[in-house]
């Protein structure tokens, strides 16, 4: 359904051109849940915004590659076509629900506007649809709440309203950019359950962007790991967590404190590289515990490590396995 081909996104800044997305290729099938994981500055949000051509241009530019939605190039669409794509095929929810809602209009008005933008219908019918959507996302007493303003809702409730708004257009793909980062854990659990339920009922594909590996373990069928603007590993949740084939993913997993607590954490030394002037070889080489001389010169492409499992590393799967064992046993 969605196909991203060798996408490059550059951001023009006073300090130089930031290669925020540097040659990313992947696809999303109808109805699946894809998780994109990465740390801040890895380019995951810029990538997500590119799928709807939402990055403001300038500073953003797309020098190479393309995004295809149902075989139509998104990057070549004109304004009218983009409006239609954003209004009905792809919808997005953001991290901070307060800044995505207009504080001076009632929730109902904003929701009805979204419904009308998708398909013109009588006002009464749109209002009923709005109430139904609010009920679907678990807002109690939707008939009354439709008359409330955004500030009268809590953070979790606002996120629900945004999800309802995104669903108004019956999208085929829902992009969720850090949808639960601003929420408390018990509310996060509610919103994650809601997203799962929505997927079942509406059959939309979901792309969830997060830095929280727990969230993708919970939700995603397939996980893409981003580092320094590139995809470094992709595969099923099991591949990523149990058959990790890329040192960055592995280091990231080792640096999370487990709920069980106990042993000392293993942080990743150093900082992610500058995306203005990225290293010549593998972008993770300066921080990689297994880096060799070759890694400094060769930038590895994604290579198959198993069915549907790819990693960008010069080490073969078995070489990496034995290196991992060496570290864990010592």
């Amino acid at each position, binding site marked *: 359904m969605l196909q991203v081909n060798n996408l490059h996104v550059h951001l023009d800044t006073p300090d130089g051109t930031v290669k925020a997305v540097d040659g990313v290729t992947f696809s999303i099938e109808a109805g699946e849940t894809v998780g994109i994981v990465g*740390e*801040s500055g890895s380019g995951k949000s810029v990538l997500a915004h590119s799928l709807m051509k939402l990055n403001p241009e300038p500073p953003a530019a797309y020098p190479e590659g393309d995004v295809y939605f149902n075989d139509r190039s998104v990057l070549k669409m004109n304004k009218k076509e983009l409006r239609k794509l954003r209004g009905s095929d792809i919808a997005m929810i953001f991290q901070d629900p307060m800044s995505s809602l207009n504080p001076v209009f009632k929730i109902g008005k904003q929701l009805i506007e979204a419904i009308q933008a998708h398909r013109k219908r009588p006002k009464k019918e749109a209002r009923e649809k709005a109430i139904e959507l609010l009920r679907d996302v678990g807002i*109690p007493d939707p008939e009354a709440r439709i008359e409330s303003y955004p500030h009268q809702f*809590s953070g*979790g*409730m606002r996120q629900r309203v945004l999800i309802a708004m995104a669903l108004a257009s019956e999208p085929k793909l829902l992009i969720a950019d850090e949808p639960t980062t601003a929420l*408390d*854990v*018990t*509310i*996060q*659990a*509610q919103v*994650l*359950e809601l997203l799962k339920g929505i997927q079942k009922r509406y059959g939309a594909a979901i792309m969830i962007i997060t*830095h*929280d*590996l*727990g*969230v993708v*373990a*919970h939700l995603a069928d397939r996980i893409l790991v981003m580092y320094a603007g590139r995809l470094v590993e992709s595969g099923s*949740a*099991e591949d990523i*967590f149990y058959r990790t084939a890329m040192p960055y993913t592995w*280091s*990231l*997993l080792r*640096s*999370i*404190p*487990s*709920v*069980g*607590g*106990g042993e*000392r*954490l*293993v*942080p*990743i*030394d150093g*900082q992610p590289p500058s995306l203005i002037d990225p290293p010549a070889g593998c972008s993770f080489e300066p921080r990689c515990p297994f880096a060799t001389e070759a890694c400094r010169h060769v930038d590895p492409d994604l290579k198959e490590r198993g069915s549907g499992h790819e990693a960008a590393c010069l080490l073969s799967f078995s070489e990496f396995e034995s290196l991992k064992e060496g570290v864990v046993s010592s």
Partner: protein
Amino acid sequence: MSELLEIKDLHVHFPVKKGLFQRPKQHVKALNGVDLTVREGETLGIVGESGCGKSTLARSIIGLQEPTSGEILFNGKDYTKADAKETREMRRDVQMIFQDPYTSLNPRMKIGDSIAAPLKAYNKTDGLESRVKELLELVGLDPDTHYHKLPHEFSGGQRQRIGIARALALEPKLIICDEPVSALDVSVQAQVINLLQDLQKKLGLTYVFIAHDLSVINHMADRVAVMYLGKVMEKSGAGSFQTKAQHPYSRALLSAVPVPDPVEERSRERIVLSSELPSPANPPSGCVFHTRCPLATDRCKTEVPILEEKNESGQEVACFYPIEEPASAGYAAR
């Protein structure tokens, strides 16, 4: 281990002013009768959702917030009744590390000077520069090159290290860490957590560690206190919090954290709490958690459960119906 900090029946109420004459109509009970003790050399973790009063508690402990009633004893002396001179002395021994190190550093001040500020405030100017460099080295920064830089030249993790260096400048006994790693990426978060643990061992520090992230709390804390709407719902004793937690709210919190393990995560039974946090201005009657509790009965609506010791390990639970069987084994194994 002796008790370094004792908090007794602490209340902090904020008036909500309404109407033409701005008369206080209601009070937000940010802290509503909190009892806690912190022993020397340990880490007490405080966990709770936004609005539970954990930051107000931190501010009360370092004396930034005057309590409405109650006592805060530091080394046996009551903080809340101390005069200016005594307060000044106590403040030297209690320092704080903040969530966002960027906003807590002066953007126009070289970080060497920022770290020196508390030393100057207490007239410890002998060998100032070498002391600052020693502190920079202690937190893993380069004493020579980093001394003259400005805050914006550092990454988030490095800034947090600067915040830690400044907190350590006066050789405090107790450090309040208010969400010290929640603004950092996981790989950097691990660096800061390790640093805090190393410093504790090296300098014999006592921490009150406030966080909303249970996995971080479990990793750091010797004992955990769970807060909800200005009250302590449970204090864990020695031993693991995640298996022995008995309060339904603690259990719900634990089960809400997504664990980075797909098989475990998909098979786990999750207690999803209905509804949201009630307003702290108008907390529910009886047990404050009863509106969201899956086990609540009529008794919970009228009677207030008090914190009671449950076993020899010192675990205390404020609930009429604590869950005594341990949390699922698979979960604990993580």
